[in-house]
């Protein structure tokens, strides 16, 4: 008896103008899991996340979140329902302070006391942000900006967090630290995670299951352990 998936994509297609970026994606994420999507540049991973959030409207198929069809809805309706994305390239608000960035994550929330407590929680996860709370987001280092982006999304109290390439452009030590925190968020706070990564090795070590994407399609789906052992995956994505 498995519980119904918290997120499910059924044959989802989407396009930028006439160019089809997703050619029928089906995937599912179960509550409590860490699921990863790996694939080469331009495979459509980011597009998948943007389609889930409704920023890129799907042309066919359906996206179900929490048992409800969310495809075709406005993107701003999702964070209040517990689905939040940390987009590729961080996309923090550079001229707002760290604190204001975090407050934007809690934009739709009205419970001021709880927001203050959640901010403290974010500061315990990322102590460096507390030191920089009055500094403009754009003046943070790349690693700090990534932490800010994750903390900002956490401020919305997500049940499902979509993470797009959190390791992008960061030194191995920082990447390790961020992955530890992702694990912590998953295990302690019970947040389900859908992780898009170029760093297939790290992602598969962290995740329970994985999907491999190529040119807008899912070409392989397996448990993370099996994918790590798969010789073709090792050759294509782990550089062997």
């Amino acid at each position: 008896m498995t519980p119904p998936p918290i997120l499910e994509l059924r044959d989802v297609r989407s396009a930028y103008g006439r160019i089809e970026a997703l050619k029928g994606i089906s995937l599912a994420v179960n509550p409590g899991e860490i699921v990863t999507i790996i694939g080469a540049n331009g495979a459509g991973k980011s597009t998948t996340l943007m389609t889930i959030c409704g920023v890129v409207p799907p042309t066919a198929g359906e996206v179900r979140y929490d048992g409800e069809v969310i495809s075709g809805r406005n993107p701003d309706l999702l964070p209040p329902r517990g689905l939040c994305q940390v987009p590729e390239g961080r996309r923090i608000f550079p001229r707002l302070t760290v604190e204001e960035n975090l407050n934007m994550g809690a934009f739709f929330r009205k419970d001021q006391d709880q927001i203050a407590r959640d901010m403290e929680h974010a500061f315990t996860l990322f102590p460096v942000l507390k030191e920089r709370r009055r500094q403009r987001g754009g003046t943070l280092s790349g690693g700090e900006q990534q932490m800010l982006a994750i903390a900002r999304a956490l401020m919305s109290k997500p049940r499902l967090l979509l993470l797009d390439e959190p390791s992008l452009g960061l030194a191995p030590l920082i990447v390790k630290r961020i992955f530890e925190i992702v694990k912590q968020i998953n295990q302690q706070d019970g947040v389900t995670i859908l992780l898009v990564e170029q760093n297939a090795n790290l992602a598969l070590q962290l995740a329970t299951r994985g999907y491999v994407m190529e040119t807008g399609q899912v070409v392989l789906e397996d448990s993370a352990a099996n994918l790590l052992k798969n010789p073709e995956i090792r050759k294509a994505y782990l550089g062997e």
Partner: protein
Amino acid sequence: MTLEYKKIFQKWALGLAWFYLLLWPLMGITPDGLSFAPSLKVWATVAAGTAFFLFIWILKQQGRLDFFSRPAISLGRSVGKAVGALPNKLLAVAAIAALCLPPLFAGRYVLDVSINVMIYVCLGLGLNIVVGLCGLLDLGYIAFYGVGAYTYALLSINYAVPFWLCLPVAAGMAAIAGCIIGYPTLRMRGDYLAIVTLGFGEIVRLILNNWMELTNGPNGILGINAPGVWWPNWADGFTLEHIWLKKLPYLYYVILGLALFTILAVHRLNYSRIGRAWEAIREDETAAELMGVNTFRLKLLAYAMGAVFGGLAGAFFAARMRFVSPNSFLFIESAMVLSMVVLGGMASIPGIILGTLALIALPEFFRDFEQYRMLAFGGAMTIMMLFRPKGLWPAKRLGQRSEESQ
């Protein structure tokens, strides 16, 4: 002389040569033939003036003016500290009290310019919501000013509705106009929006110009009522007497009230949750959307709120001139208001007030130069943007907070 100063002098000489090249065609080519004397005279004055300041600056760099500048700077600092220590409320009250004084002693001319400045402060702050906070380039903002002005003009002429009742109506009409233009266009981003708003500004002006039955076309509308008030009269017992606020000192107080209201409202908006969401949209629209901001609705709100202040200013403008015509709402006015916002410092209220002062008061100052006014004006603006690219008084949010914490 060190190498460093040599470089500066080279630059100065180059700048002067370039300046003369620009100046001569403007002043030297006249209908009576070519002449050099007048342009050389102006050029020599400028050269001497800049040389003087350069000299002082070099002396200061070398530390020879320390005996004077050190105490002056420390005096300035301690005055600044003393003022900073006063509660903000007290400062605000003092500033408002000071602003109430000019009509008691100032002449017509000064009051006239001050009223103009305050009208543009309202416009600048309104446009600032759209451009500075929300990051939407609006090149047709003056249309809302026009809508407000014509709303009051028509209501006053046709139905003799009092000014104070028309204020909210004008604001409402402007907001509706803002929504009408915003609804189809705000899904666009960046440059497209700028072009569309430019077009919209022209459309409004053309409607005002051509709808003869309603607006009397290019001839404009005459005989608009000034604002009126009921004033207690103690002469024989107690009666209320209706007076028209036609005189400049009265009008000064009306627009002062409007400007203060605008400043307060924009300040509150700026630091509200909505203000922060506007700034988030300006910074990264998609990221704001991912954080649960309904970007379309908030952009529409920014547009409507900006229009409201334009409409209020417009109603006052009609009441003050007691005449409106489409010629007051040309594109150049939109450009002017936008320049105030940019020059003063986006999203900074004191900056925009300063920018307005600079752009309204400076041209008055240059009136003696007659036809070179715009040249001097453009030059002054270029120089200001070179030295203060973020505006005369940049917004705190946009920069100073990181320094504050250190």
